[in-house]
């Protein structure tokens, strides 16, 4: 047993982080928000070329030949960078929908909760989207439709990769809160020296680490109940950490200019899109 990252996995994570920092850093993120949140086809194609969507396809089918453990690391980085688009749906469609693996097609799907992200930008919509009605999405970077009469259960892989993105948000929020607490001064000292602030930060790290351990383990075991539990913990970590991060930022945290609201809003979307908390908890309880 060695439940740490292998050297290859560490390298993969670093590589993805660097790629996303270079191609979708803060300026690109804010430009996407200011530009009305359209999907960047050029970036999508680059992600495809980097193996983002074909990651788990066998090499003889043109894929990268890696597994779920590697996929959760990649999607955690996507979550940290707030990368927009139906990333999970397109990744899951790779091999089944032409162009998905290569990043030449954008694939979205109707979630069992009756939500459909990125309908207008997508080339392929999986599931029955009849009667879809656009809504004013809370997340400026996730256009949404409501679809009547949806149902069923989300695929376990979809649930897990969404949870991995939530871990990315939880980790980003911890880092951002700590960085701000180390430089913001009040009462003649940095606020990170006050226990009231540092205890918030410590709680954020605890939630992140717990959720990350759950997501990694579910990626290794592939177990559906463990995956549901991981989603529950990752949703809680992402949403609670975004709120605490906002709190640490004080008045700045309530502004449009600070990035933290973008993470909170995306965390809400991911939490509601597949296996929301109530369902996840029921699924874990049913296995007791």
């Amino acid at each position, binding site marked *: 047993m060695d439940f740490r990252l292998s050297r290859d996995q560490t390298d993969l994570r670093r590589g993805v982080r660097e790629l996303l920092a270079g191609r979708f850093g803060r300026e690109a993120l804010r430009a996407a928000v200011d530009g009305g949140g359209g999907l960047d086809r050029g970036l999508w194609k680059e992600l495809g070329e980097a193996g983002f969507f074909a990651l788990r396809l066998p090499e003889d089918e043109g894929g990268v030949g890696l597994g779920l453990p590697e996929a959760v690391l990649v999607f955690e980085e996507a979550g940290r960078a707030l990368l927009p688009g139906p990333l999970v749906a397109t990744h899951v469609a790779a091999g089944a929908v032409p162009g998905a693996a290569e990043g030449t097609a954008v694939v979205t799907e109707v979630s069992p909760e009756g939500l459909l992200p990125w309908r207008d930008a997508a080339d392929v919509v999986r599931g029955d989207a009849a009667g879809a009605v656009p809504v004013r999405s809370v997340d400026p970077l996730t256009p949404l439709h409501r679809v009547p009469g949806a149902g069923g259960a989300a695929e376990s892989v979809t649930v897990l990769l969404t949870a991995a993105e939530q871990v990315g948000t939880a980790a980003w929020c911890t880092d951002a809160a700590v960085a701000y607490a180390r430089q913001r001064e009040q009462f003649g000292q940095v606020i990170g020296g006050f226990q009231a602030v540092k205890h918030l930060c410590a709680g954020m790290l605890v939630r992140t680490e717990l959720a990350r351990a759950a997501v990694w383990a579910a990626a290794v075991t592939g177990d559906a109940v463990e995956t549901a539990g991981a989603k529950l913990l990752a949703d809680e970590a992402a949403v609670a950490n975004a709120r605490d991060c906002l709190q640490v930022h004080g008045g700045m945290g309530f502004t449009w200019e600070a990035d933290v609201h973008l993470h909170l809003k995306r965390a809400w979307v991911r939490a509601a899109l597949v296996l929301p908390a109530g369902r996840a908890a*029921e699924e874990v309880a049913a296995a007791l």
Partner: protein
Amino acid sequence: MDLSYTDEEEEFRAGLRDWLAAELPRLPDRPDPLDWPGRRAYDCGWQRRLYDAGYGHVHWDASPTQRLIFLEETERAGAPYVGANFVGLLHAGPTIAAEGTPAQRARWLEPVLRGDEVWCQGFSEPDAGSDLASLRTRAVRDGDAYVVTGQKIWTSHAEVADWCELLVRTDTEGPRHRGISWLALPMDAPGVSVRPLRTLAGSTEFAELFLDEVRVPVDNRVGDENDGWRVTMVTLSFERGTAFVGEVVACRRLLGELARAARENGRWDDPALRRRLGGLAAAFQALWRLTQRNVSEAQATGGVPGAGGSVFKLHYSHARQELYDTAAEVLGPDALDLGREWNLDRLSSLSYTIAAGTSQIQRNIVAERILGLPKGR
């Protein structure tokens, strides 16, 4: 990210399972919780059986993964835990093993492993709890002995212990962390007196220790004079490592029992209760995975777990308290009956966010040592 065990580890597990299956039916009945000599004899008898079977050393010499397997399997089989040997096996013993002289290791380690001698811990004082470094129990050098005077508190198993790992102040000048020494105090020395403390659960799990000019040989000092704080930190990091493996296994078993009981008494129909149980099950599953990750780290970095133990303990201690609150929900009005199972455990669980470093101190550790935030209040 590998959760599989090696052939050697699986062999260790299989051998242990077989041994437990044969040995546990031969154990005597568990003693009454208020019968201290009986508890000591029971716990030491169990340790002796482990020793004779080659498992006596498992907390020290085995790899972190073997230790994890040992704690997992013994808890699953319903075997006793360390009990009165807690301090000897998990605090004082590892400290002596790491910091003691060859003569000290020869004198004290074997009797702990054989279940012959019991240790207790004299760290906290009435005015030195979370702020342990402010301790004032004084040790003054007099020839080849220290003369020790002061008071300790929260000393578990003091009534039946042979030895006490004692922190004393040997220097009142200079930085307070640098004036502390670690002594092995014989509990039968003249001037030692013990007064049991009753917990809110009604039991006497720990005691106050009064020291009135007790002579302790200088040879009983482990580590250099005034270096006891560093010596102690070695001990505390053991406590925050794999020490909770058995408890996590026990909590996961309890969740199964709660679900069964709730299905029987109809409370399972309440979705709020069901979801609460589901949330706890997810949390304890994740805590188990976090333990495996901490053990993997310990295995790779040389065995002594670091601040990652604080991350674990913070979540675990709160989750376990919530677990017993949820047990009370399952029981309904029977939660007020101390004759029913789980209710005394609910009372005991109130100590988990205080003992071995309060949650507030743990958050300071996480914030300062992992996140790099400045020290301050």
